[in-house]
C-alpha cells in the first residue's frame, strides 16, 4: 500500500468482463515527503476519487479484491483518501483535502 496523487482520468469502453463502470485513473506514486516517486500508472478506483486527490492504493493481486467483481486482471486499485500525513521529523507535511 502506497501514497499517490490522482493526476488524471482514463476512458476505456472495451474492457475485461466485470470491469465495466469501474473508474480508471492515472496516479503518481509519492515518497514520504510527498514528492513524485517512480513512473505514473493507471489504477482502478474503489472510492470516488478524482484528479488532485491524495490517496493510497494497493498493488498486486490484492488490487482486484478491493473491487466489486474480484476475478479481474487488475494490479493497482485506489482504496482510500489521505487527509493527513504527519511526520515526527522536520520534514513533516500535512494536507487537508478541499
Amino acid at each position, binding site marked *: 500500500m502506497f501514497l499517490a496523487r490522482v*493526476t*488524471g*482520468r*482514463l*476512458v*476505456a*469502453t*472495451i*474492457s*475485461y468482463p466485470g*470491469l465495466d463502470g469501474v473508474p*480508471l485513473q*492515472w496516479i503518481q506514486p509519492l515518497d514520504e515527503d510527498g514528492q513524485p516517486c517512480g*513512473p*505514473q*500508472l*493507471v*489504477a482502478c478506483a474503489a472510492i470516488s476519487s478524482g*484528479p*488532485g486527490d491524495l490517496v493510497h492504493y494497493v498493488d*498486486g*493481486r490484492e*488490487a*482486484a479484491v478491493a473491487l466489486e467483481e474480484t*476475478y*479481474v*486482471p*487488475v*494490479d*493497482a486499485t485506489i482504496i482510500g483518501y489521505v487527509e493527513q500525513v504527519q511526520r515526527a521529523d522536520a520534514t513533516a507535511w500535512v494536507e487537508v483535502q478541499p
Partner: protein
Amino acid sequence: MMISKVVGSVVATQKDEKLENLKLLVLEVHDQNGKAAGSYVVAVDSVGAGLGDMVLYATGSSARQTTLTDGRPCDAVTMAIVDSWDLGGDNVYEKWKDV
C-alpha cells in the same frame, strides 16, 4: 496497470503446452503523455485488441485472473482498450484523433 500500444504479435510454434491457443501481443509501453517509454512487453490478449490500439495491461499474478490465463504461465495480460485520457483537465489522448 500501464498504458501501451499494440505494435505487433508473436508467433511461437514451440512453447509450453499451457501457452497454446493464446494470442500474444507485442506492446510498446507508453507514459502518461502518450510517449513511448522505450520498453516492450509481450502480453496475452483478453479483450480482442488489434494493431495500433492503445491498451491497458496488468502484470504479475493479477494477469492470471482471467478465464483465458487462469492456471497458465502468464505474467502480463491486456485488460482494456483505451479510448481517451486526460491529465489535470487536458485531454492527452483520444483514440479517434490518433488515426
